[in-house]
């Protein structure tokens, strides 16, 4: 058969018209691709392992129910190993090659600081649970939404608990010497002082300092009625708790969620050294005085039973990830589109969405979606199936 230029031109035009006509039909059948930036291995992988269980559970549940308008949820996971460089590479791959519709994560602030601007340039809808305040800025990053409290909200919760629930007006604020420890301790001191409390002692301690007696003695001599901790360093925290016991001092410790880490339990010299320690927690994932979870969370735990292991993780990690996937699905369901603008527009219009982990509200000018009154203090040594008992005073 002889191919003429006229036949070639006609054929090409026909193909182009055909392809453009069939695109909407193809798009309707394409899966909804959610990129998942997960530090599944390497240092600090425990949160992502917990989040991952929630992600897989939510995707399976949605797909088992027929997907979203007949479209399956496809989770595309990249292990960033907690390394910002790997997170950047994975983000660029997701945007330019995998063409995901939204990205969930990263789940630690170091990685998030590295990728937030990249996602903003691509207008990629992004939900993350990282606490650093500057990660959320609707003007610079109109695509980024926070699904967990910010550091300021944590700070508010700790301060309110100290001043209103345990009536501590003189506090010692202690952080480690990392960037996070220094900035969080400084912000905490400023917050207490604004609220009229007296910060009688402030210190940043090297995480490897073997003896905590000097700092604890100074805090006691200064008259501290509560020790506020801003550190993720379990070794330092455990040493401080052991020193408190050696000093026969029963001052309460209040602060960072690391106070409730299981590692602390293995590092303290006696179990009672972990009493009167209150860590940041969430009302949705806290047991009341009768030992019961809120009804909606109890229902979730029932559904997770036998499918998701909660023994070695935290319930809020699992619940938060389920909410993240559901929020993407809900946006596509409501708008009928996976276009970036459609998803972001839907999230901007979110009012009191009842998730399992929290009740989220976002607007075009406020992308911190977690309500401060749902941030509570937990009794640090009461972990059971990933949930904690509410601290005394609630």
């Amino acid at each position, binding site marked *: 058969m002889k191919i003429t230029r006229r036949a070639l031109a006609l054929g090409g035009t026909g193909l182009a018209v055909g392809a453009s006509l069939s695109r909407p039909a193809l798009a309707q059948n394409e899966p909804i691709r959610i990129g998942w930036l997960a530090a599944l291995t390497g240092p600090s992988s425990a949160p992502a392992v917990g989040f991952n269980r929630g992600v897989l559970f939510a995707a399976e549940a949605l797909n088992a129910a027929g997907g979203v308008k007949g479209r399956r949820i496809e989770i595309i996971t990249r292990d960033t190993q907690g390394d910002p460089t790997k997170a950047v590479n994975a983000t660029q791959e997701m945007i330019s090659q995998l063409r995901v519709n939204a990205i969930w994560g990263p789940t630690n602030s170091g990685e998030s600081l590295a990728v937030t601007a990249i996602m903003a340039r691509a207008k990629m809808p992004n939900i993350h649970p990282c606490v650093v305040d500057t990660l959320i800025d609707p003007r610079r990053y109109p695509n980024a939404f926070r699904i967990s409290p910010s550091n300021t909200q944590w700070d508010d919760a700790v301060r309110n608990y100290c001043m209103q629930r345990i009536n501590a007006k003189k506090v010692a604020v202690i952080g480690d010497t990392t960037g996070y420890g220094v900035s969080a301790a400084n912000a905490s001191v400023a917050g207490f002082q604004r609220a009229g409390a007296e910060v009688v002692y402030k*210190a940043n301690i090297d995480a490897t300092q*073997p*003896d905590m007696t*000097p700092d604890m*003695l100074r805090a006691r001599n200064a008259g501290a009625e509560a020790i506020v901790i801003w550190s993720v360093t379990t*070794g330092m925290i455990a040493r401080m708790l052991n020193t408190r016991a050696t000093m026969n001092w029963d001052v309460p410790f209040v602060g960072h969620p690391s106070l409730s880490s299981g590692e602390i339990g*293995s*590092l303290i010299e006696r179990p009672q050294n972990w009493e009167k320690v209150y860590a940041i927690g969430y009302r949705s994932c806290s047991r009341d005085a009768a030992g019961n979870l809120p009804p909606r969370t109890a229902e979730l735990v029932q559904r997770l039973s036998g499918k998701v292991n909660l023994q070695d993780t935290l319930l809020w990690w699992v619940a938060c990830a389920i909410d993240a996937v559901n929020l993407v699905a809900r946006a596509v369901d409501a708008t009928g589109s996976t276009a970036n603008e459609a998803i972001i527009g839907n999230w901007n219009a979110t009012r009191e969405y009842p998730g399992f982990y929290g009740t989220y509200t976002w607007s075009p000018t406020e992308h911190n979606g977690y309500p401060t009154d749902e941030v509570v203090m937990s009794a640090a040594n009461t972990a059971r199936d990933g949930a904690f008992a509410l601290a005394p005073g609630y």
Partner: protein
Amino acid sequence: MLASIIASGLAVGAIYALIGITYNTMFATSRVMSFTAGQLGMLGGVFGSLFMLRLGVPLLPALLLTLACCALVGVLTEIVAVRPVLNSLEQHLYVLTTLAVALLIQHTTAMEWSTEPQPFPRLTNIGSGVLDEKYWLPVAACVVTILGLEYLYRRTLVGRAFVAIAEDNFAARALGLPERNLRMASYALAGAIGALAGFAGGQLLLAFFANGPLLNFYGFIPVALGGLGNNRGAVIGGILLGLFQQAANFLVGGIFSSVAVFTLFIIVLLAAPQGMFGAQAARRV
């Protein structure tokens, strides 16, 4: 407060002194400052916790296994990082090679052990308060090490061979001493001494991969203060450093205590560049 300063100061000082001796032992036969010294101390705590808490090995076998494992790490360091650069010592290539091995050890420990501090068991249950075993054990380990080294260097043939190599490498080889084997033996000995530091200080430092750099820095100071290759100087320097650091901790706080330590370090080195107990080096003219 004074009792606390002395107890914890002596304890951490003894650990620093042992790491200083580890540096010196490796330096004596190779003229190489191996920056794996602190990592050997870190491994002492990690192996001790691994054998006793995770594997349930009793104290004495666990101690021997820990010393043996770290001695092996010492030998591997000699083979991998020291031997290849001995011919170009003046170019200080060993800084790169030993640092590379140190980083390798640290990252492997982080991946295979844990990035969080792990507990180290109580060993004897003797003492409480400022006389707790976590304070006196490192001091006891330091005393035992000094006595053992004095015996080795003064009373045994192998020890005298070490001294001969350290004094004059070429002359010792001319006399037929097996220089390479002795160097490997000294790296094994250094591994065991570093391991003892970490094992005895396990309750203070915990089994934590990040202890390596800390011990590298603070273990180097006694060497510089006491004079390179001078074990007695390292012990005195280490103890003084520990006491000064803990006093500064109590008086001015953690961050500022590090500043105080390094300020003192610089002042001492400006006043006595060869260290407090080091002899003025002869210069060929």
